[in-house]
């Protein structure tokens, strides 16, 4: 095998922070290398150096034996390095073909060579098994399809080394598995791949070799068949991390009951005939492929959208018409799907975010004035009780890591003594250590008798935490099954819409 890519002794500093510390990495022709590490381990920085977005302070980058000039993305593209970013860089109002061509044609040419480009694109799509409609507007494509366009864009520029930054972050499990199959086929066509990830199971499933980064340093390299998820987890985190385990206990009375709820948004039915019951001391897991109504279910239980039919009862009170403030008063705690967009106001301090839901309660305001001292004391308590690291009450919230931000939101919800808790994708994008803390907090709330509804796209998480599980498919819920009956096959079928004999919902 020949080395197609060599990174030698790369060091990159941002002020006092050393993002990459003397990192050496090689990629062989036709292999899939996983670059594993927690958030902030320096994975993305390293790949940005390779691609020329950053210039390294020390070290060199060699592609196909030739040294790349630092800090020039165009040079990287020219020798055949392509990058697929975590956040797509596509123009929604343009077609697939236009997006692929964008930036690869000289501006000075009067007519664009559309038909040749179209031919080339279709050839590439055929060769690498990435079917696509060149005329479709990107806006109308699903997330998985958009990612395919991103990959095609790199291949169209004759990439022979492809770097994918957290390619599954936006994909549901089946889509992710399909992506990995495609990537495997692509290596047979001579491509060499690096994908960045912090998810152990996909590293195990999809890579030939794993390089583990921790705190900016390369701590280990393993051939994937010769390692285990447990070993990788320990290498990645630097210590043993175990997710907490759910223990059986007495389930209490019903707390939240949805009865044939129907929700419409933007003129479309998003939830239909949705019924479920969450009992005190119980976690009900809702699993499903993303985009099957989870967002509307989250909105419904947050008080942001309201049912047009059916009833939503929290402890004998009909809460279907209540807004967020009413829901909170009725005893609901809500953990939103997107921490940054809905959970916190990043530019405000921790203490302001901590009391944001309860600004108008006597605890935190008097005669229209905020009781700042009470709010700061409360926040200090949260920081200690929920182990929010590297922060004081006056720290700006956007400086928190994802895990610590989620702990702040959990703290704000759980210290209010909620009878019902909505946890919508509570660990999305978090690293192993943070996932374990979030799970522990949810289980602790369960032990104290809260009724918890967990919406998750991570099957392991749903199975580990939930007492019962229902699948959501096209806005409808399956019958619940108990966690003991939940095996991957059965859940897979449920998520595909097959949950009853003689069912035609698939």
């Amino acid at each position, binding site marked *: 095998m020949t080395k197609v890519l060599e990174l030698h002794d790369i060091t990159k500093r941002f002020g006092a922070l050393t993002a990459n510390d003397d990192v050496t990495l090689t990629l062989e022709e036709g292999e899939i290398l996983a670059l594993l590490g927690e958030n902030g381990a320096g994975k993305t920085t390293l790949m940005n150096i390779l691609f*020329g*977005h*950053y*210039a390294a302070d020390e070290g060199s980058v060699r592609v196909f034996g030739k040294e790349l000039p630092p*800090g*020039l*993305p165009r040079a990287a593209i020219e020798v055949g390095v392509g990058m697929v970013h975590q956040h797509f860089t596509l123009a929604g109002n343009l077609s697939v073909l236009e997006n692929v061509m964008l930036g690869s044609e000289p501006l000075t040419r009067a007519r664009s060579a559309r038909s040749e480009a179209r031919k080339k694109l279709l050839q590439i799509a055929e060769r690498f098994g990435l079917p696509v409609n060149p005329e479709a507007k990107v806006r109308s494509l699903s997330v998985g399809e958009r990612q395919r366009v991103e990959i095609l864009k790199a291949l169209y520029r004759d990439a022979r080394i492809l770097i994918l930054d957290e390619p599954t972050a936006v994909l549901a499990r089946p889509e992710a598995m399909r992506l990995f199959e495609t990537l495997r086929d692509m290596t047979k066509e001579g491509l060499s791949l690096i994908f960045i990830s912090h998810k152990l199971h996909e590293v195990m499933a999809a890579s030939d070799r794993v390089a583990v980064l921790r705190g900016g340093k390369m701590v280990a390299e393993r051939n994937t068949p010769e390692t285990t998820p447990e070993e990788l987890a320990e290498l990645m985190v630097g210590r043993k991390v175990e997710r907490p385990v759910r223990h059986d206990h007495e389930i209490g009375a019903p707390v939240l009951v949805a009865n044939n709820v129907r929700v419409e948004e933007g003129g479309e039915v998003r939830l239909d005939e949705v019924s479920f019951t969450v009992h005190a001391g119980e976690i009900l897991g809702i699993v499903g492929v993303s985009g099957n109504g989870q967002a509307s279910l989250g909105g419904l239980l*947050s*008080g*942001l959208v309201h049912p047009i039919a059916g009833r939503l009862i929290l402890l004998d009170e009909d809460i279907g018409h209540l*807004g*967020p*403030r009413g*829901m*909170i008063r009725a005893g609901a705690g*809500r953990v*939103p799907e997107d921490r940054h*967009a*809905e*959970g*916190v*106001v*990043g*530019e*405000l301090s921790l203490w*302001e975010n901590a009391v*944001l*839901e309860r*600004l*108008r309660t006597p605890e935190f*305001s008097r005669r*229209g*004035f*905020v009781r*700042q001292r009470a709010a700061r004391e409360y926040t200090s308590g949260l920081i200690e009780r929920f182990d929010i690291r590297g922060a004081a009450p006056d720290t*700006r919230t956007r*400086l928190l890591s994802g895990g610590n931000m989620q702990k702040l939101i959990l703290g704000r919800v759980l210290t209010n003594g909620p009878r019902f808790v909505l946890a919508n994708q509570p660990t999305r994008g978090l690293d192993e250590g943070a996932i374990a803390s979030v799970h522990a907090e949810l289980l602790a709330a369960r032990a104290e008798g809260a009724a918890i509804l967990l919406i998750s796209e991570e099957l392991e998480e749903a199975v580990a935490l939930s007492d019962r599980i229902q699948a959501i498919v096209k806005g409808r819920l399956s019958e619940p099954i108990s966690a003991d009956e939940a095996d991957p096959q059965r859940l897979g079928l449920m998520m595909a819409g097959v949950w009853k004999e003689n069912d035609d919902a698939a």
Partner: protein
Amino acid sequence: MMRLERRSHVPLHLAIIAPLAAILTALLLAAGLIAAADVNPLTAYGEMVNGAFGSRLSIAEMLTRATPLVFTGLAAAVAFRARLWNIGGEGQFFVGALITAWIGHSLEVPGWIGVPILMFAGMAAGAALLAGPAFLRLRFGVDEVVTTLLLNFIVILFVGLMIEGPMRDPLAFGWPSSVPVDGDYRLPDLIPRTRLHIGLLVAIAAAGAVWLILARTVFGAETRAAGLNASAAAFAGISLPQTIMGVALLSGALAGLAGSVEVMGVTAGVTTTMSPGFGYAGIVVAMLAALHPAGVVAAAVFVATVFVGADAMSRATGVPSFIADVIVALCLLTMIVALLFTTYRVRR
């Protein structure tokens, strides 16, 4: 390749340097125009500073100009904090002025009751004028930049109509002006034998009040949250319509108060030329202040210096006093660039 990286926090010295650098750059750019008029820019700027600070009278005149700018600057700052783009400060200024002259001409109560009544009337008029665009945005999604901007022209034409017609001052010898407010309601002078009146103190008190509201009250916290991240605010149970409407009423009231105080303190009657663009300049003041109430006072003094100093410079050097408008407008542009550099850092 150059990249912009977000700073983890804006250090205090940068927050102070940014507007100063913006002003300096704007002055450098305007120096080109002054040089094009065959005048040494240093001489011209020297005359400008002299015109605003050279004597007791000129300082008083400068502060007189700064007074309405503090109000309109606060009006813009409050609205922009909540991402309500109130470009209608000019119109709100004029309705505040007009209602003050109208009521103040025929009111028959003692001055110490009448002055607060007239201020309140001006505030109510300004608030009402902005409530309309705010309602249209909340109910139908109508862009308030368009509605508030266009309302300015409607209001000024309406003022023209009133002072040529029903509110015409018969004693003004054909000079179009409204009837004046009664002498009991003229604001007392702050410095004798100048135009500077106690309105300046009202303006400074207003800046303090706005600071208190934004920094310490529940309404202020909700306003900041709604302006910085509307979805998170809504998720936390903050009513966006209530907050936006509250901000609109406060912002409109401040701009209306500017007009009211200007009538009672300086002009007595309303004319269509009584504002050299106080409402629009308020936007620049708010931006230079980075939307901070304390900064608004300082920025208002600067803009007033340019306005007053430019007249003196024009008399001494022959550079048209329109250069003041150019400088103020340039400041807005350079300040926007400066704000970019305070929130982001350039990396290679």
